[in-house]
């Protein structure tokens, strides 16, 4: 398709109206910035943006409402992690038992290397115990590589409490119900 351009009039060819128009536009913007505070800049450390609810930030371990570790050291997240950022040390046979009922074990050590993590959310997706969540932190800092490897205590402390369904509690109740099933005489 050929679009025919209208030939410019003498007034337009003088170029002056365009200059005045440009000066007007720029002046309007400068005025709005200076006197009406219409600034698009967000001055970061002082002002921060609202993190959307589905944001995928740093993955942290969570505790349940009673303050117990939810992770059961199944190592599914370690297996699925694409950059191999997660390293779990299971308790072994002689290790510490889980700190909650209906769990066989909990990790002796749980490390996430935040330098490797790509915030993909696979760990959260794969976790059968809802023990790890990608949370809203996006600016992780440290002064050394070692500092950027978060251990279990740190992850649990940062993760906080998860107010979700306690799966094992439901199971416990179900089991009790099964046992106490009123048999008709």
């Amino acid at each position, binding site marked *: 398709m050929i679009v025919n351009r209208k030939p410019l009039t003498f007034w337009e060819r003088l170029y002056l109206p365009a200059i005045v128009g*440009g*000066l007007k*536009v720029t002046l309007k913007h*400068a005025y709005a*910035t*200076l006197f009406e505070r219409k600034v*698009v*800049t967000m*001055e970061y450390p002082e002002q921060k943006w609202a993190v959307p609810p589905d944001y995928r930030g740093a993955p942290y371990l969570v505790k349940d409402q009673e303050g117990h570790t939810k992770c059961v050291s199944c190592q599914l997240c370690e297996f699925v992690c694409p950059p191999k950022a997660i390293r779990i040390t299971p308790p072994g046979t002689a290790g510490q038992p889980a700190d909650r009922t209906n769990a066989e074990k909990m990790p002796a050590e749980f490390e996430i290397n935040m330098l490797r993590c790509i915030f993909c959310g696979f760990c959260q997706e794969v976790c059968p115990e809802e023990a790890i969540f990608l949370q809203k932190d996006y600016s992780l800092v440290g002064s050394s590589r070692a500092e950027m490897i978060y251990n279990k205590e740190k992850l649990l402390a940062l993760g906080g409490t998860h107010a979700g369904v306690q799966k094992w509690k439901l199971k416990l109740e179900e089991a009790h119900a099964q046992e106490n099933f009123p048999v008709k005489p």
Partner: protein
Amino acid sequence: MDWNFIIFSAVKIAVVIGVVQGMVAYAVLAERKISAWIQDRVGPNRTAPPFAKHIPVLGRLLTRLGMFQPLADGLKFMFKEDFTPAGVRKIYFFLAPAIAVIPAMLTVAVIPFGSVLGGQKMVIADLNVGILYTFGIVSLGVYGIVLAGYAANSKFPFLGGIRSSAQMISYEISMGLSVIPVLLIVGNLNLGQIIGWQAQHGWLILYAPLAFVIFLVASFAETNRLPFDLPEAETELVGGYHTEYGSMKFALFFLGEYSNMIASSGMMVTLFFGGWTLPFWGLDHPAATLVSGIIHILIFLVKMAAFIVLFIWVRWMFPRFRYDQLMDLGWRRFLPLALVNILITAIILWMRA
């Protein structure tokens, strides 16, 4: 040789160079701030020395205005590694930044930046052929850029250098011709006398507005400012003639560009806007007291600052010209216009005489 003359000249030179350098630093800041305002941003507002936050209100205000930014910029340029790429022509590579700065600084020498202060004329060199001297020096400015483009031994700087040489030569003609009506009206080449004439008869912009417009546009082209910044067109030539330069050498090109801007602002103020004079409150006579001498200098600086702001404002408003449009504008529009302007002025003056 008069010792008084030497000492006073040396002091004046030192002060003027210091002031021009300071103005360059703060013109860069103004550039960044004004561009930010035009683009709805805030611009540099963080840089501050540690003691600034202990000053109650002023410290914060200066920090928000970015007043410490030029110091940081300068320090950064000083302490950066001075890297010389392999394959450059060393002598010219080192010579080019100096050649870019020196003419820009020399132009300031003939501009009267004030009337009289303590019995001294406020101009470094009170030449009888001030304007001729200026044009002679300004035309040397192109060598810095051309040499930089040649010495870098790289295609983008080379293209920038070529463009620059063509552009500057073209616009120098229009620029030179645009001033001739002014000289016809005043009948003198001494810049101090031109200001004196304007103090008596009114600013020359009223007598030769077309000459002013041509001079303004040509000085944009001469200083490689935005509608005509083809020698350093970032989108086309990476960085133009200074692509291969870094650290202080790059800063010298910057210094040269902004000094050129300041010098041509000074020229425009002197030629068309009455220099250090104001037509009221009796400020159009050479100062008798120290205070009025300082006021005259301040008037000149304010007028000059207004032009620098105009330079910056235009930069953030216009898209760049295409190369053939640039040449077309220079040769086929401004050159005939300037010639006609000379003719008309000459005829009017002849009819009156």
